[in-house]
């Protein structure tokens, strides 16, 4: 809502010295979001006067039409002689009244005017456009004034060019502030000044002689006032003050009758509609549309109506979407002069509608037809039903005053009976909400200020004003009291909070994993979860793979990416590619985040009532409607893992780093990770590790790691040999066991034994290792693979694995016999399980 300060002053006697910024501060403190104060005509300086165009000479030979004009500005120029002005606009003619700025004047934007030679003539000033005067930006043309304004009149005052406009973002609960009346009320309260309520008008009693109205949906429309005005003067046009107020409020002047209805809407907040009486066919009606009925609205769009749409009808059918937009057919017609007869044609008789429609009906219709109008905005947020007849009266008055119309005596008013709304509230409730003492007196005073009637002492009965549909509960009233006392007066206290248990294990683990990966050189990159089918193709994920079963959005930002991720890799690889594209080469990224795994069988969620706690089965049904959303962790790497430098060679990132990242994550969880070779898109089939942990006694696959498939690398435009790891943290979490048992540290000497075992090249190292461990028994303190050797001596298709075994007992120094027995047992187990042969044996 744009509120011109000059207009606001009409209802509240603000001190003359109060600026827009002052009023802004007061209203902000009272809870109105005044986003800015616009300074109209800032820097504007005269002489700026009304001129009369005496002569126009069209100059030729220029790229655009140029006019050399003589303009009578009376004695504003000191001489009384016509002023010579060169002008580039053509929307005016001889005899028009225009706005002229003379040399010495300054236009907004610090545009100083002086006499100057241009297009071969001396131009002594400028004929001004609306834009140059800061009157609005909707057209560039020269301002042509109504003929009645006298030459030489000061145009700054005439056009009210200097003003301040408060721009207020009205929250949904304060629909009444979508009117001057509402903002004036808040202003009056904030300043402690009386309000001149523009809705306090003498309104004639309803009678049966007015235009006939039939309401068949009293829920959708609980009030309808109709008034008729005839004999409108087709020559009449909107006076400057009216046009200017509309412009400052952000609306475009159109025609007198339309301007008046808009003006009254801005003033009182009541949307109005004016029908051309001669185009109406019989009585006005309000009902729900029949499905498939058609209506062409004022904006020229033909709309197919829905059975929920509330419509205004006459005998011909729907003629308007109630509270949203009128129909084109019954629209009032602008006065148009018949070129032959020189007669004016247009609407001379209007029926004014001031009605009150159900906010939900209007909201739904507006949403269904993607139509938001000034009217629907107000009805959705709640319009004061009691203001309808005053608004109709005000419209009639202005049509009579400005358009020379005649008000017909008939007054139609249909009102569904409704009781005033009351709220019972303990007088100290606001105190309890605020945490400070206001006292009953202050509470009652503030409630009265906003228009409530208040009765009672300890228990108050509060009747809320008709313009405040948002006030329904004690807390609503408490807010009014607290905001009018000022939020700044609230004390600062802290509640006594029972002791908390800190972060959960899951939350701590997530942080630890982030730190561990960052410590290992990975940079966290949270990415968007949106993806499209194409990326599955690029990743080589086949049709039928469960990862292709996605949650899909109805209204995605991009039609290319309508789905939610089932794997973190597309986003993370995208981030890798973006970094690469920006010149970063050696990259290691990680992300932890949710993936979305629908079963495809999710039922629609229920919508339990909100006046009670949902039943357990309702809660279960709500959860059943959602896809499984486990948290995953993923890493991607490319380029060098270790840089080359003065210390020596670098080392490229490889599959092994990706697997190690999985080990790092598992280690943080204190979970033993089993790595085995796997085959899974998008990984290289020979360089893919399947990652398992034990969940509930079962080896469970939790993810994969390794080098990406070369085809995937190519399809996604990734650096060669890009490696990746992804695993399911939820499963990892479930593999966690109890608290770690501390190791016993033996201080007896260690006995070291190395073994080199030759196995078939296809035997995984971890199988050899576990066999060795098992065979070595409990004397084995540690075991480490320190070398792998292949070559002729070993034999084709064979490899030699060299292990360092360390033996130690907790209670004694091992004898040479004990150590070598353990070693022998280890080798024997490896031979048995993996066919290992002791090298050189």
């Amino acid at each position: 809502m744009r509120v011109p300060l000059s207009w606001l002053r009409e209802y509240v006697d603000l001190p003359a010295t109060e600026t827009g910024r002052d009023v802004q501060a007061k209203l902000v403190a009272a809870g109105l979001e005044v986003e800015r104060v616009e300074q109209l005509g800032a820097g504007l300086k005269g002489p700026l006067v009304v001129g009369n165009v005496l002569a126009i000479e069209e100059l030729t030979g220029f790229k655009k039409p140029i006019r050399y004009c003589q303009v009578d500005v009376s004695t504003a120029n000191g001489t009384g002689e016509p002023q010579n002005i060169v002008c580039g606009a053509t929307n005016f003619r001889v005899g028009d009244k225009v706005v002229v700025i003379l040399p010495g004047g300054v236009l907004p934007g610090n545009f100083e005017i002086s006499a100057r030679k241009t297009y071969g003539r001396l131009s002594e000033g400028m004929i001004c456009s609306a834009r140059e005067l800061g009157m609005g930006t909707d057209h560039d043309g020269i301002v042509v004034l109504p003929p009645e304004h006298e030459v030489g009149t000061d145009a700054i005052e005439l056009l009210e060019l200097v003003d301040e406009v408060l721009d207020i973002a009205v929250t949904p609960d304060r629909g009444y502030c979508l009117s001057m009346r509402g903002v004036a009320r808040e202003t009056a309260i904030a300043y402690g000044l009386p309000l001149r309520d523009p809705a306090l008008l003498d309104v004639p009693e309803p009678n049966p002689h007015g235009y006939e109205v039939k309401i068949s949906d009293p829920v959708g429309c609980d009030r309808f006032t109709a008034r008729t005005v005839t004999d409108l003067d087709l020559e009449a046009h909107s006076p400057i003050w009216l046009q200017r107020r509309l412009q400052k409020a952000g609306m475009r002047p159109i025609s007198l009758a339309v301007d008046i209805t808009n003006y009254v809407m801005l003033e009182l907040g009541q949307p109005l509609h004016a029908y051309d009486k001669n185009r109406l066919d019989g009585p006005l009606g309000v009902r729900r549309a029949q499905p498939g009925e058609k209506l062409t609205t004022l904006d020229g769009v033909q709309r197919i109506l829905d059975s929920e749409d509330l419509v205004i009808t006459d005998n011909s059918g729907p003629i308007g979407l109630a509270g949203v937009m009128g129909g084109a057919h019954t629209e009032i017609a602008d006065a148009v002069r018949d070129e032959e007869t020189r007669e004016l044609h247009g609407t001379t008789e209007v029926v004014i509608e001031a009605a009150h429609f159900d906010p939900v009906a209007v909201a739904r219709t507006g949403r269904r037809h993607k139509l938001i109008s000034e009217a629907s905005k107000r009805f959705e947020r709640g319009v004061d039903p009691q203001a309808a007849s005053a608004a109709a009266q005000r419209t009639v008055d202005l049509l009579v005053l400005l358009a020379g119309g005649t008000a017909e005596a008939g007054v139609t008013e249909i009102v569904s009976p409704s009781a005033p709304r009351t709220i019972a509230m303990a007088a100290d409730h606001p105190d309890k909400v605020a945490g400070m003492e206001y006292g009953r007196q202050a509470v009652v005073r503030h409630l009265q200020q906003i228009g409530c009637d208040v009765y009672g002492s300890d228990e108050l009965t509060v009747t809320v004003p008709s313009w405040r549909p948002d006030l329904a509960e004690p807390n609503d009233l408490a807010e009014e009291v607290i905001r009018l006392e000022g939020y700044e007066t609230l004390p600062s206290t802290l509640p006594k909070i029972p002791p908390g248990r800190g972060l959960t294990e899951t939350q701590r683990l997530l942080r630890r994993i982030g730190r561990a990966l960052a410590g290992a050189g990975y940079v966290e990159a949270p990415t968007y979860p949106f993806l499209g089918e194409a990326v599955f193709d690029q990743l080589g994920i086949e049709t039928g793979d469960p990862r292709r079963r996605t949650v899909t959005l109805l209204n995605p930002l991009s039609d290319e990416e309508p789905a939610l991720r089932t794997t973190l890799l597309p986003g993370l690889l995208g981030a890798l590619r973006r970094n690469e594209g920006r010149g970063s080469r050696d990259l290691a990224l990680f992300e932890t985040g949710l993936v979305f795994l629908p079963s495809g069988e999710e039922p629609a969620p229920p919508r339990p009532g909100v006046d009670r706690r949902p039943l357990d089965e309702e809660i279960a049904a709500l959860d059943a409607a959602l896809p499984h959303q486990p948290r995953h962790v993923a890493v991607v790497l490319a380029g060098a893992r270790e840089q080359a430098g003065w210390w020596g060679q670098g080392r490229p990132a490889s599959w092994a780093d990706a697997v190690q990242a999985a080990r790092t994550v598992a280690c943080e969880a204190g979970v033993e990770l089993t790595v085995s070779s796997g085959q899974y898109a998008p990984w290289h089939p020979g360089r893919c590790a399947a990652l398992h942990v034990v969940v509930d006694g079962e080896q469970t696959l939790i993810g994969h790691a390794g080098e990406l498939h070369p085809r995937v690398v190519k399809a996604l435009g990734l650096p060669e040999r890009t490696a990746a790891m992804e695993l399911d943290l939820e499963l990892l979490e479930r593999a966690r066991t109890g608290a770690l048992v501390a190791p016993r540290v033996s201080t007896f000497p260690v006995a070291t034994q190395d073994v080199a075992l030759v196995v078939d090249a296809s035997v995984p190292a971890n199988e050899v290792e576990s066999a060795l461990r098992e065979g070595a028994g409990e004397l084995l303190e540690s075991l480490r693979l320190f070398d792998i050797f292949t070559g002729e001596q070993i034999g084709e298709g064979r490899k030699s694995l060299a292990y360092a075994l360390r033996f130690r007992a907790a209670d004694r120094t091992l004898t040479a016999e004990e150590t070598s027995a353990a070693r022998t047992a280890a080798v024997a187990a490896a031979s048995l399980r993996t066919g290992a042969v002791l090298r050189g044996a």
Partner: protein
Amino acid sequence: MSAPNKSYDPVEVEALKPEEIERMRDEAVAAIAAAPDLKTLREVKAAHVGDRSPLALANRELSALPPHARADAGKRVGQARGAVNKALAARQEELEAERDARVLVEEAVDVTLPYDRIPLGARHPLTTLADRITDVFVAMGYEVAEGPEVEAEWYNFDALNIAKDHPARTMQDTFFVDSGRGDGTRLGDGLGPDASGDVVLRTHTSPVQIRSMLDREPPVYVICPGRVYRTDELDATHTPVFHQIELLAVDEGLTMADLKGTLDHMVLSLFGEGLKTRLRPNYFPFTEPSAEMDMECYVCHGASVGDPDNPCRTCSSEGWIELGGCGMVNPRVLAACGIDADRYSGFAFGFGIERLLMFRHNVEDMRDMVEGDVRFTRPFGMEI
């Protein structure tokens, strides 16, 4: 030890004369002092201290002396050998120090050499900032609550007093999940009590409040960080995917003053002492009364207001920084969670982590926070 002489021979005892012992000592000490390096010193040592050195030989003669003379001579020889050993040790130390000094100089390296062998990693500042804020409240006794990002409308809207046709709902540009009916329509468009709801990407972390209240008995003190979604295109100031952190307290007798105190404590914890906060009335369907929370600009402390010569980028010379929304939990929300609103009251607040990061660390472009560029993230390290 050599065998004692069988016979006493006064001539041979010449070597044990005091002058002779002094001479041997002085010669040894002079040779030690003259040794230029450790190698020479080793030779000197062999010549003057070794088994065949004059003093050692003299020592061997002692047994040839009569007992009374033996004591005197023994003492002299002992002193001389002591002096020589002392000189030797001193010279040894001196020469070793010289050698060490030389070798350590030779071993010196350029310690300014870079060692970026494995470049550093980092956690994302949005993560670490959320952690940091969370920790402030965990320290006060709050617990961290989480919820799904794909959420039922009931949790995201209905239970939060945002009815289907409430104008507030239009403020929430929501992503809707395709129900799979294939006609591109939403499930929840129907009317009537049996109408089903839709599934959405949560537009705020507030549904976690609802889940917390359904999961726990009051008192409830939770902090809910998380990722949320709105249908904004990515640009310098908007992102469709962003992070919020919300706080919820439900207990007996909670007041707006408690809300204000909690906000004050947070600002103090994150920005230091002495910064004012303010609440401005506002509207949110899930709180009543509702407010917007501002904090005094921690950079200019309001000095930039009305001083065009010294503008403040952080607060756009407003003097205040908008943090987010807050208020007393709407009793209707409590009712939807089965909490007796006559007995319990609550307060809640929430704000965007991106915005906080932007003004706390002068981030100028939202895109820097969402694109995952390592050059942006790396300097933030492990904690913020």
